[in-house]
């Protein structure tokens, strides 16, 4: 980076911070669309300038810096003042029914099965879905890197998403059926 690049980068970082300050001001007192637009424009401009100055590394650098500054600015007083588990808290007295041994066993078994569904089985669904996608997108000739990396990234994101969705399903039988059905479909698509 040249001296001019550094100057531009510092200026655009200040611009990005000013943009975030404007967004904060609009959040405090809403109904000011001009300031809202200006805030977003300044944040975007800082990313664009850093890209021009230092390409993708520049975007990562300014994003990290802005994230850190804002996160600290918002939470620093809280980090100093929040007592975590030491804080006094209202406690209700409730008579708790202890589960029987059989109820406990069912609960543990269900937990283990849920863990298997949301972990390895969701993973198998996602990875074979990625494989199926790659079968469709891989070029017959030419460089396969784009298709391979896209399928790879999508399969990992799918894994995270499927885990979440399976855990969100409250009925364990339905959860199992969804997972089993999805696994069967992706295995057929990927291997047949």
């Amino acid at each position, binding site marked *: 980076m040249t001296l001019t690049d550094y100057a531009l980068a510092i200026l655009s970082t200040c611009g990005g911070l000013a943009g975030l300050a404007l967004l904060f001001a609009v959040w405090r007192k809403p109904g000011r669309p001009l300031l809202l637009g200006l805030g977003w424009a300044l944040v975007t401009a800082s990313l664009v300038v850093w890209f021009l100055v230092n390409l993708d590394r520049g975007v990562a650098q300014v994003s990290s810096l802005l*994230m850190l500054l804002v996160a600290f600015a918002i939470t620093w007083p809280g980090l100093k003042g929040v007592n975590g588990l030491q804080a*006094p808290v*209202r406690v209700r*007295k409730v008579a708790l029914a202890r589960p029987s041994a059989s109820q406990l066993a069912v609960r543990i078994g269900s937990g283990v099965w849920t863990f298997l569904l949301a972990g390895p089985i969701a993973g198998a669904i996602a990875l074979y879905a990625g494989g199926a996608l790659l079968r469709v997108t891989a070029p017959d000739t030419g460089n396969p890197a784009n298709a391979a990396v896209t399928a790879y990234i999508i399969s990992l994101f799918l894994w995270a998403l499927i885990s979440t969705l399976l855990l969100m399903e409250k009925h364990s039988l339905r959860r199992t059926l969804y997972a089993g059905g999805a696994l069967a479909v992706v295995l057929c698509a990927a291997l047949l």
Partner: protein
Amino acid sequence: MAKSLWPKSSSERVDSALSAHTVMGLVISALLFVICVSGTIAVFEDELEWWEQAGTPAVHEVSPAVMQATADEIMRRDPETTHLYLYPPRDNWPRFVAGGDNGVFVLDADGTFLRELKAPWNDFLIELHYYLTLPHQPGMILVAIFGVMLVSMAISGLLAHPRIFRDAFRFRRHGQARLAQADLHNRLSVWTAPFLVAVAGTGAMIGLFGVVALVFAQTNYEGDTKKLAEAIFGGEVVEPDTTRTPLNGIDTALISLERDIPDANPFIVIVHEPGTRSQHIEIYGDETDRLIYGETYTYSTDGELLATGHNADGPMGQQVAMSMYRLHFGDFGGALMKSIYFLLGILLCIIVATGLNIYFLKRREKGRHAPRLEAMWSGWIWGSTAMFPITLIASMLGLAGAGLIALYWLGSVAFSVGATIWMTAASAGRAFRLVLGLALLAAPLLQLIRGDVDGSNAYALTASALMLVTGAAFAAKAVRARHAPQGDAVAPSRVG
């Protein structure tokens, strides 16, 4: 209040998402916290490695002739090695190390072998963060799965909090402890979300490559697991030929690179199949405006450029894949960027810790107070953190390898169990923060007493100074908190 851009969620969906978020958090938080803390510290793995041998000098430049002589000496010491690795100094890293398959050495600018590179605590840190100290293959897969689960937590967290962007600046410091903890957890999660997803996603991509290669081999590459790597990074440049021949050409390759690409900025030189007819030299050049690990230039021993990796200007997929490492470890802007990543890592650890704090505070409010579990969690958080400087001291006193691993896990469990049996969450937090502070103070003092410090080594001196300051801060805060009037850990009488 401004309208939310986030789509409206039904309360049932929010409940389901929150339940998924809680279940996942309960299952993964303890080990995820260890992975996050070790990863936060591992941002400085190079600096800490040097700190462990702080008596070795800074090196600012190494000539091609010295590189060749160094390679010759490594071959003499390790004739069966299949690769030679030479790491010449660069702009923001003034160190020269080199080695083969069976050992790496620290050298000075003249190529004198000063000592074998030994950094047992750094090795332990890597074992913990990369593999959770398990055998490497399953360990790396397990850690990578934690990365996927962290992304999953981010998804369920977003679904569970439909107002999370609308409340992006909200922080209630007073009032109910749970709300303050929830605000801390949610605000940090929102504002560090790109970092969180980038670190977790890149970690998952790095660690699951073998598994994905296995699956894609079945679905696309007729069972050949090497094909995925070849599809992304390209194949071998030179066909293997094991006929013995003298090692040469490293100096010629470096001179040719200087002539061919003057701003290549080489930082790694790897000699493949050294001492055979197929030996060739792969040089990594630092692209200082890119996230890619480096551009690769492959030379023959007579200085002919055989291939360029095209990591910087090849297909986008290849560029993305080559950017995973630097994006994961924050190695894209020298010490300043690493420091920013370190602080963001600490925020991630706070997110994990406060997540379970919220769970315990909710339990209290619902009348299902679990003081033992709370103490156990507090003991785990602060105990497992305190074990990092404690193991560092132990390694300076001679413990290494499995001993350090055993000490870390047994110590962390002992802290947690001790807290469960004898302490409250609050007292465990105070006591173990004091232990953490004292251990952080002791490590650099021990190094000073041993006299293993080079005054010219700014990296090691800075690391020592930071340990002293952080240690003093933790110890002072813990001592102050001990003497301050305490609020009740629980106040059951307030509400009947």
